[in-house]
């Protein structure tokens, strides 16, 4: 056989697909249990009515909406980052893009689950779908919730395509290996289908490149619009500390911030778990760390601006909420958020020693918690203090809500573990392309083509 076989590094990526990896198995098993918890809790809620959740009057929105915003935020990790890097042709992006895009897709799926859970009667969700019925009933497109439906659906479709397109050549690579090893196996069948008959003809390469480029350009505004619209769920309402003009950009920044955080964490775990430091090198962590720092600054700035204007404006209803947040019932949450989202990142990320895998992972973990708290403060913090103080109320989640939150984390992990076993978590052909561009042996494409051409 001629041409280079898969490098030793690639083996590390391809093993999980072919052979049994105990680590992955255990991971899938544990997260799988959490998935069971998720659906048990949800089933329990459906069977016993939404009242089994802790939400009440006046706090009509609770964990479910917080989690919704949280996961949609995380979904801004991959697509946006990888798209930005692609568009800006940052070479170091190559090993990162896929594991990032995977995060997007899965986080989005989970985020989209929460409105259904929140309704309590998911089977009537379809009233929000614009289907012409004999009743002439039509959704109300003035409602930000309808904007959500449209934006998130678009984003999901877009990012799934954006994830799948670059996977085609890799599927082809794996297909070819499988055909060599045991053509009859189910897996090889799967990859034959997944590869969509990729032969790597120049025509195919041209369309692929064009497709990826277009998607990269298209996906950025879509992603921005998604979290802007999510923020409008609050900003369009007239409740104190919701009705804010900067919520759009504030939420987008927060979303990307939390997205990078997950990415950092995921990359760290992948690097440790799969031993693929050749791909996810310190350089990558360093560069992403800088991006992370930038968003830490942006988020802190927005947070400061938002609270300063409220405090300075000193409008009665807003001050009620503000004071409870700074020094009252919610101050514990607020200051924890400031510590993990602003102080810790500023103590670690500015320094080269801090932008190592472990450092960024630690910061990432903190920021994840911080960003969840931020959404909790916005949703519950405002709703607890209505203008007519007589109707003030308290919210404490039940095991159902907590179980579903934990379960959703499990679901994410489960999907990710499964993904690792179905596709190389680092884009093989893009990395190869990168290497070849580096040491200009021959046109990039043929390099990537090699395995495919063996069949021809």
């Amino acid at each position, binding site marked *: 056989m001629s041409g280079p076989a898969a490098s030793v590094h690639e083996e590390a990526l391809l093993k999980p697909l072919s052979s049994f990896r105990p680590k992955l198995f255990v991971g899938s098993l544990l997260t799988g249990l959490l998935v069971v918890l998720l659906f048990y809790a949800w089933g329990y809620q459906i069977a016993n*009515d*939404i*009242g089994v959740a802790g939400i009440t*009057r006046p706090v009509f929105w609770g964990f479910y909406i917080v989690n919704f915003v949280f996961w949609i935020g995380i979904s801004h990790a991959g697509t946006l980052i990888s798209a930005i890097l692609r568009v800006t042709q940052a070479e170091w992006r190559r090993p990162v893009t896929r594991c990032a895009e995977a995060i997007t897709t899965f986080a989005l799926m989970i985020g989209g689950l929460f409105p259904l859970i929140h309704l309590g*009667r998911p089977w009537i969700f379809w*009233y*929000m779908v614009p289907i012409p019925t004999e009743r002439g009933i039509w*959704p109300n497109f003035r409602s930000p919730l309808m904007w959500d439906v449209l934006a998130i659906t678009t984003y999901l479709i877009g990012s799934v395509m954006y994830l799948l397109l670059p996977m085609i050549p890799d599927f082809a690579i794996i297909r070819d290996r499988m055909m060599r090893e045991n053509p009859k196996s189910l897996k090889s069948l799967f990859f034959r289908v997944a590869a969509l008959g990729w032969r790597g003809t120049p025509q195919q390469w041209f369309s692929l490149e064009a497709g990826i480029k277009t998607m990269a350009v298209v996906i950025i505004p879509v992603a921005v619009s998604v979290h802007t619209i999510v923020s409008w769920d609050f900003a369009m*309402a007239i409740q104190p500390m919701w009705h804010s003009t900067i919520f759009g950009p504030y939420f987008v920044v927060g979303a990307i911030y939390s997205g990078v955080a997950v990415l950092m964490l995921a990359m760290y775990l992948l690097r440790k778990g799969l031993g693929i430091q050749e791909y996810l090198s310190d350089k990558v962590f360093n560069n992403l760390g800088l991006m992370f720092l930038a968003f830490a600054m942006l988020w802190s700035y927005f947070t400061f601006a938002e609270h300063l204007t409220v405090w300075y404006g000193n409008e009665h209803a807003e001050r009620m909420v503000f004071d409870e947040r700074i020094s009252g019932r919610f101050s514990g949450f607020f200051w924890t958020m400031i510590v993990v989202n602003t102080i810790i990142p500023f103590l670690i990320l500015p320094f080269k020693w801090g932008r190592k895998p472990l450092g960024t992972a630690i910061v990432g973990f903190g920021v994840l918690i911080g960003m969840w708290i931020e959404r909790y403060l916005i949703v519950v913090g405002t709703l607890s203090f209505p203008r007519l103080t007589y109707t003030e109320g308290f919210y404490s989640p039940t095991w159902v809500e907590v179980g579903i939150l934990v379960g959703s984390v499990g679901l994410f992990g489960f999907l990710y573990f499964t993904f690792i076993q179905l596709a190389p978590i680092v884009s093989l052909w893009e990395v190869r392309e990168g290497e070849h561009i580096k040491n200009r042996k021959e046109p990039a494409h043929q390099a990537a083509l090699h395995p495919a051409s063996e069949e021809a």
Partner: protein
Amino acid sequence: MTRWGMAIDTDRCTGCGACAVACHAENNIQTVGEVEAAKGRAMHWMRVERYYEGVFPDIKVRFQPVMCQQCGHAPCEPVCPVYATYRTPEGLNAMVYARCIGTRYCANNCPYTTRYFNWFAPEFDAPLERQLNPSVSVRPAGVMEKCTFCVQRIQESQELADQEERTVRDGEIQTACSQSCPAKAITFGDMDDPASTVALIARTERATHLLEDLSTEPSVIYLRGGR
């Protein structure tokens, strides 16, 4: 054109709460029981808010009956994704229970917190259900509800008026709360009929709106007290 409105004289109101119970009886509002009530899920479409002013011994109590203000610019309406809550031509903020999918967005956006949610299906220990008002549907679990200005009474009077080929007369329609009120603090009527009691009251100096600065244009007028 008709625009239903209400005036509440806070200087007549003594906080007796008859209006609140009347509303329960008229509108088949469920009682949720001690455990649920403790979670803040008690449903009182009409609630008589109590506020304190001053410090002992010079402390004063203010009572303020608050129900859905039937806003002219209702913040709860545009946010409903399925048109389950909308504005009627006669100025009511209506609820279509069968349409409500329970997002609870409307309740979040009601600055008066006058919307109540059916967290569980209502239960009436037999034979209490024999009291239920047949003119009002009982709401299932997962559905939002609130003061309707006793729309069933409005419809009844309008049907009667149609049969007698006339228009509804001022004072002919009484909401359950206004009819019970021992102090006669509540007046209901057509704001667009300049001669109606409620319209007259609405033009007096004591007339004011709740949270006027939000320009929700409520259909409920409060007559300020004089204490």
